[in-house]
């Protein structure tokens, strides 16, 4: 009984996912309210009709009370979590008791993260995002939604079964020698060879990594690449898992996933129209929408897009060598650029083992410019809406005149390309007339709609550049299929002898057996290095075929449940500012510690941890990096100039063990697990 719905403020469904139980629930619901003799309407219509009053009430509350719903709980313990991201309302529902409020909120944030990775800065324009998430063409819409649904299901499966997705940190395969060899191989042989090949079509491999199931065997980043954030890496692992569901114990290998490999977002051709300045584009607005969804379509009259630039043409599913467009965070010396375009090549080596290549696309400089302009207009809009006017509104870096000249150059440079920039040009001209002309209105509130419009136009340019496949006349911009194949073969040859070992190792990376002697009474532990986003934990895979030391069946399931609960409990305390928690629960004793160290391993004094509201972003690293964005930033205030590292340890002990001993165990684990050698006790 699970559901996730994304709706626009006008109650238009932008995406929905339901499990079979909830789908049936909705159909029964809707059937009950339908008159006799009428067949069941399309599922999308039912769900939209049933949720419409909630969605509309949400907007009313925001508009009139300045407050919004965050959750509902019914007496039979159905939970609804609501969160508004810009103009998109996310509603996650659970009716089977398997997910709590925190899980549902996390799910909405993860969904948003995946949409960002798939659509990049288009998500910054609600207007464009609405159209992107809900293509007019129903087949195309169905394909996109199916892809997103499958990603969401893959995520949910991993979150429920994989410890690294439970704590949202990457798990490495513990085999130092092999890891080192592989990294060297990726660096010296693979990446070098790829980047020196002429078949790379202007792309440059920045990162290469090998996944064994969800665990990382080797990761290499080229010298001029920025660090890949944990959040992005975890998302890419979900995408890779979704393409090649490698979990052998996964009951259904999801044959339909073949289709979902079709890539990021709609596969479509961009069809250039000869008359991009044609203002009479409203006709496409009035196209009847298929299905009788209640449409409360609201079109901002100020936003005039080149409508035909949004027309897309369907193509048959492309060949597997087509990369996936992903938008990842890039941190350069001059600053942080979110959602920069990359191509992701997922090359299966064997079932369960995948090579992933991330390349920089040749035109990515455009994305950086667009981002800078967007940022400038967003700042300006914010100041104007705060009531500042004139020079007060335009102060700061870069100066508005700087932006002006750069944007002029930018538009000029776009001119000769096939990108439709006339609409941007028009809006920009109008903006300049209003803002800069002598005797014109200048910088005041009236300019706000034009800031918005400029942002939308810029996002439109970005969309044309990075989201739509190049036209048929274009040379495909990607590593040639031959080159991809060579890369695949090279790594296969390298790992041939290790393949079976790796598959087993990934299931039993480290095992509790090795710890039993030193830590009697210890049942399980998880240790996370939040500064690098990596975790270590004894394997806890409980499946029909494989058993862990916990055995199989109810006891193992019970302990797994306890570990999952413990993580969610301690997150709740952490959210409220508690960094140490010990619990005596039934026959178990649980501990949780969070602490900081400097680079040399010196333990730093525990400081204040921010107290966050209940509906704040979930604590973790996948959807939103709490540890670096909130915790370390907050903590580093008192440790300026110092590198601060953050660690977490969770342990489960038998309750009969004296607390004193338990705490000693914890201390030993904490100091030994992350010794400089990075080798856990083995």
């Amino acid at each position, binding site marked *: 009984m699970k559901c996730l719905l994304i709706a626009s403020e006008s109650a238009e469904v932008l995406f929905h996912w339901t499990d079979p139980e909830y789908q049936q629930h909705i159909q029964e*619901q809707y059937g009950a309210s339908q008159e006799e003799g009428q067949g069941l309407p399309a599922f999308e219509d039912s769900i939209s009709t*049933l*949720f419409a*009053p*909630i969605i509309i*009430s949400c907007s*009313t*509350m925001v508009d*009139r*009370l300045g*407050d*919004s*719903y*965050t*959750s*509902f*709980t*019914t*007496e*039979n313990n*159905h939970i*609804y979590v609501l969160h508004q991201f810009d103009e998109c309302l996310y509603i996650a529902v659970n*009716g089977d008791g398997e997910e709590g409020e925190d899980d549902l909120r996390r799910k909405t944030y993860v969904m948003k993260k995946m949409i960002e990775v798939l659509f990049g800065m288009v998500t910054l324009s609600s207007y464009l995002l609405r159209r992107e998430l809900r293509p007019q063409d129903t087949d195309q819409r169905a394909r996109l939604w199916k892809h997103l649904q499958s990603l969401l299901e893959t995520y949910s499966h991993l979150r429920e079964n994989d410890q690294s997705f439970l704590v949202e940190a990457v798990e490495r395969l513990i085999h130092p020698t092999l890891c080192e060899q592989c990294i060297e191989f990726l660096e010296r042989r693979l990446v070098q060879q790829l980047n020196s090949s002429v078949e790379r079509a202007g792309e440059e491999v920045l990162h290469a990594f090998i996944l064994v199931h969800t665990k990382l065997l080797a990761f290499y980043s080229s010298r001029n690449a920025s660090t890949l954030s944990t959040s992005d890496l975890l998302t890419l692992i979900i995408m890779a898992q979704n393409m090649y569901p490698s979990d052998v114990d996964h009951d259904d290998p999801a044959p339909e996933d073949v289709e979902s490999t079709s890539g990021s977002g709609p596969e479509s051709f961009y069809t250039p129209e000869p008359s991009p300045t044609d203002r009479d584009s409203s006709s496409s607005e009035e196209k009847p929408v298929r299905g009788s969804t209640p449409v409360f379509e609201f079109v901002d009259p100020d936003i005039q897009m080149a409508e035909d630039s949004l027309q897309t043409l369907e193509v048959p599913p492309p060949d597997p060598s087509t990369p996936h467009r992903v938008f990842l965070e890039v941190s350069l010396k001059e600053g942080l650029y979110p959602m920069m375009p990359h191509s992701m090549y997922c090359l299966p080596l064997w079932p369960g083992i995948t090579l992933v290549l991330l390349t920089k696309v040749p035109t990515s400089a455009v994305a950086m410019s667009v981002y800078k302009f967007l940022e400038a207009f967003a700042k300006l809009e914010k100041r104007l809406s705060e009531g500042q006017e004139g020079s007060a509104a335009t102060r700061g870096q870069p100066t508005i005149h700087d932006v002006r000249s750069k944007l002029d150059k930018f538009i000029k440079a776009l001119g000769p390309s096939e990108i439709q920039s006339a609409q941007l040009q028009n809006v920009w001209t109008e903006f300049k007339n209003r803002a800069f002309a002598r005797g014109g209105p200048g910088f005041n509130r009236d300019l706000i709609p034009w800031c918005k419009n400029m942002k939308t136009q810029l996002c439109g340019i970005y969309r044309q550049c990075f989201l739509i496949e190049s036209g048929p006349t274009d040379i495909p911009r990607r590593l040639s299929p031959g080159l991809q194949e060579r890369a695949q073969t090279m790594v296969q040859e390298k790992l041939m002898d290790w393949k079976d070992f790796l598959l087993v190792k990934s299931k039993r990376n480290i095992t509790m057996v090795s710890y039993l002697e030193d830590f009697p009474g210890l049942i399980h532990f998880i240790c996370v290095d939040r500064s690098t986003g990596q975790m270590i934990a004894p394997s806890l895979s409980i499946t029909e075929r494989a058993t862990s030391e916990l055995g199989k069946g109810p006891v193992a399931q019970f302990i797994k449940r306890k570990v999952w609960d413990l993580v969610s*409990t301690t997150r*709740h*305390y952490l959210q*409220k*500012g*508690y*960094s*140490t*928690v*010990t*619990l*005596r*629960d*039934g026959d178990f004793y649980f501990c949780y*510690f*969070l*602490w*900081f160290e400097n680079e040399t391993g010196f*333990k*730093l*004094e*525990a*400081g*204040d*941890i921010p107290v966050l*509201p*209940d*509906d704040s972003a979930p604590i973790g690293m996948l959807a939103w990096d709490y540890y670096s964005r909130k915790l370390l930033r907050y903590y580093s205030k008192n440790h300026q100039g110092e590198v601060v590292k953050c660690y977490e*340890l969770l342990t489960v002990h038998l309750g009969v063990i004296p*607390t*004193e001993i338990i*705490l000693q165990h*914890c*201390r030993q*684990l*904490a*100091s030994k697990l992350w010794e400089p050698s990075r080798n856990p006790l083995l």
Partner: protein
Amino acid sequence: LKWILRHTSSRCTYFFLYDGSKVKGEGDRTREGICYFYPEETPLDRQELLCGQLAGVGRCVSELSFSPVRILRLRRNKFAIRMKDDFFWALGCSVEVPIVSVCELLDQLIDLFCFYNGSVRQSYQLSSQEFLAARWARYLSHLQSGSSELHHIFSCLRTIDSTNVDPLLLLKAALILQACQRCPLVLAGCILFRGRVVSTQMCPELTMKVMVHESETYTKTPAAHCSSGPFGGAVSSVTVFLTLSELQYLQSAPVNKHLSSESTPQKETPRRKTRLSRTLSDMPSTDSDPSDRGSLQSPQLESFSPQLSDSSVFSPVPSHSATDPLHPPTQPLQPPFSNGKHSSEAEDEALEEPSYYHSFHSNGGDSQTDASVFEENCQVLNGGGDGGGDGGGDGGAACGTVFDFREAANDESHDGKEDGCRSAPEPPRPPHCGAFDDPEQSQLVPMTLYLHRVKGLVLALLVEPLFLSDTASMEEVYHSSLASLNGLEAHLRTVAPGAPGAPGPYVFAHFDHIQSTLTTNLSGGPGGAPERPFVRATSLLHSHFCNTETLQEAIIRSAGAAVYGTRSVAQETYFQQHGGSFRNSGIPNHQDSAFSLPGKARHRLLKHGVNLL
């Protein structure tokens, strides 16, 4: 009253009752449905916005999930919701208050209303909206009057500081109550002193309800309430409404309440024995009693049985053996305070299915109509007075009709109860969980609350309505207790008000679930900034304990404070050691002072009468 509300508003931000049945048509305005809205000075359009949106979204969600909404959260507020028939209650609190406590508060509020007014629907049919609004306001302010922030977390009875009072006085109070029970028309009672409980025979929930009326009369001069009569102005009474489970609990003999180990079927316990233990004296019961009861066989009883008969074999239903041949009386009797969770679970399940029983109530509920005419009145004994001050016109009229009322009661509840008493002597679980114990759901039985005030001391008795006309009984109760009450009052008055525990090197809070009492050395007053960390941790831990049945103890530490919490079936204890250095790295360390808290708590709290061993 408003003054009080405004100054305790930290707990409750909004409270409203909205009647959806009044806003059905297109043209109906939302304001028609607003029965009560707090804060009352809220602009009407904002009231309409909140009521309309929350009730609307609540209905939509309930329809989607086939179940009423219980909790509704906004970014800056959280609401406990109750939906019943067309009524929609919402109680909003700031986000710091644990949601379990908000839900509890709302249940208490509705229970309180029903206790003094009977069913909500009927109340609104019979009384004016303004009159009932004043009542909601009063109950709300009463429930919010807890002095410290801890009272926002635990809803507890305010008791006299027993460590400060001679135990003999407490024994004396208990004896007074037992003596009153010699009169068969007296169900149970409690003794209150200056708004605090000295001794009670009722479950905490019921005592809490009784105290509302007491505190109300305490603030007014008794003369305004009652005219002189044989008992002077010291005695007053008011009609109250008990739920079936409350009534069953009260009617079960005290011996059963406390001897849970008794395994012999109590059916066979001779009546006399029961009487003995009730009074702690060897006085035999008067002969007239049994015959009296025998003559009062009631057909009304059947209206109770359908709701329970098919619910569960385990639910302690008085009417089973008497009226339902399908359920032989040999069915297992649950021990009182049911040791196993069996019966309580079963009972919860039974009560969890409101929809099935709803129809029975709407049909069978008519029986209350006559009775409820009299519900508002603060009755003046001996009929001479001119009604309760706040009862307005109703009050005066009621005095004259007191006898009709009594006769009506004879036919209904009185007999039902007596019958129940005999056929199934084992008491039901005390009505602890308000969430399921919906007063609207179950039958409400009119009873009378009798108050005898001696200055700051009040004897409050729940009595059969018949009691008011039984002059002999009344005189007996009055005169037998008068001297003792005077004596008790004189003693209690001299007891120095327990100075708030000196702020020691530690703070603690100890909550007793069975008695609903809170012991703490927290000074309480507003602006207790140094205590904030303790209260915050306690609030989190309490929620955690409520949600995780298996959790026994916890230590949580932030940069500023380490707090230890432990709980058993009957109690929750929270402890924080002041001072000491909490300078640490947060890395696990067994020498860390936080982990010595359990030992310190055990040691330190012994002298407060808290045993954690």
